[in-house]
């Protein structure tokens, strides 16, 4: 379970998160939508501790992410995150990209890591690309590799930050299919996305962020068909 309690966060004078309260129970697929600069990415990087928060608390399975005593490197092993930029490690083959952290961070043997990597890469449809360098992959393939790389750490939670935004339109589908598959398998997920159709289809709940505030949160049918706030109405009108 991820519990976000009254979280505030600023960059200098700019307040980006203004008192976010949100609980994501295990097994939930939560999508986050909202305008540019509303704080969606910042929330994800605060959840895995890449960014500090000013006040409030974020608990992952009861562990306070930002407490001094928390071993962030350990905590991040159960929080997979995939970014908009694919962040493939260009000097490593696809297989090596995926086995690197399991071997060096989790201390798995080469065989053990390979077995897991092959499983995850097959899962995302890259089982035949093991020894290829990322530069030979399309954007969609690189992004699926990044997803497999995160999954190879056996995380309990997956955070996705607009993972299809940097893709050519014809490649968006294959990555969304991968996310759908994960969702159907019961992975707890927070997906920041601009794909409204996808959000409506896979989410248990959808959260709408507006200028650092979580303005609405509801099951997709309710949120999309009966928006409560003016800002959400405007946002939805603009995206349709």
């Amino acid at each position: 379970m991820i519990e976000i309690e009254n979280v505030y966060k600023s960059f200098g004078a700019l307040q980006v998160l203004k008192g976010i309260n949100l609980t994501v129970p295990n097994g939930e697929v939560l999508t986050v939508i909202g305008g540019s600069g509303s704080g969606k990415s910042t929330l994800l990087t605060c959840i895995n501790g890449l960014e500090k928060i000013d006040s409030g608390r974020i608990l992952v399975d009861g562990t306070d992410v930002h407490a001094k005593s928390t071993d962030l490197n350990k905590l991040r092993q159960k929080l997979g995150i995939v970014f908009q930029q694919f962040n493939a490690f260009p000097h490593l083959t696809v297989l090596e990209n995926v086995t690197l952290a399991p071997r060096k961070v989790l201390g798995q043997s080469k065989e053990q890591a390979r077995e897991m990597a092959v499983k995850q890469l097959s899962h995302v449809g890259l089982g035949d690309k093991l020894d290829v360098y990322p530069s030979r992959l399309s954007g969609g393939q690189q992004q699926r590799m990044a997803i497999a790389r995160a999954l190879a750490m056996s995380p309990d939670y997956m955070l996705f930050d607009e993972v299809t935004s940097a893709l050519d339109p014809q490649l968006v589908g294959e990555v969304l299919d991968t996310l759908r598959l994960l969702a159907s398998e019961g992975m707890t997920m927070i997906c920041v996305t601009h794909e409204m159709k996808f959000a409506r289809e896979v989410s248990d709940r959808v959260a709408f962020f507006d200028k650092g505030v979580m303005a609405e949160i509801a099951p997709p049918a309710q949120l999309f068909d009966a928006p409560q706030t003016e800002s959400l109405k405007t946002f939805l009108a603009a995206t349709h």
Partner: protein
Amino acid sequence: MFGYTFQWKQALSKLPQMLDGALVTMEIALLSMAIGIALAVLLTLFRLSGNRVLNGFAVTWVEVARNTPALFQIYMAHFGVASFGIHFSPFTSLLIGITFNNAGYLAENFRGALKAIPETQTRAGRSLGMTPLEAFGYIVMPQMLRIAFLPMTNQMVWAILMTSLGVTVGLNIDLYGVTQDLNALTFRTFELFAIAGVIFYLITKIIQLGARLVAARLFRY
């Protein structure tokens, strides 16, 4: 002509001794590169550390290495430290001097290479649970060394050529030192130094050629 007759035969008979010297020259250059690269990586980490003292140390090193004569650096490693009662052999002094120079230049090369590696690479590694040092070692450094490969080759060539400064601290077992000693014995100045020049040239050419072969393997991706 000019009252000087070439006597190549006599000079060429000294070739085995000169080639032994060339081995010492290559040994010094290789050692100074190996240690120099390790130190340059350390200096790079100091600069990335965000610690003012470590950063200042690294910047000073780089500045001195790049903005003073190599001869000064080697002199300091021999006669300079001797003033404090530290006595190194000519071999060690030359090795220290060249290594100091290498580390400074290479650290600056590495800094340039780092600019070509996006910050998001480190972030991706950290997100997978790596410590900052692990992310640097497994993700950033391998890319940095590849990007800086060509400047590293140039520095290796420089290291070979800088060994000729060893004579100033009394080294006489390297290629240049051997040649100088032979010259004092035989006075075949032109022939001996011409041969030494050719050997220097061949060594540096072989290094550049070898580097190209290695690069072809490294830059596969």
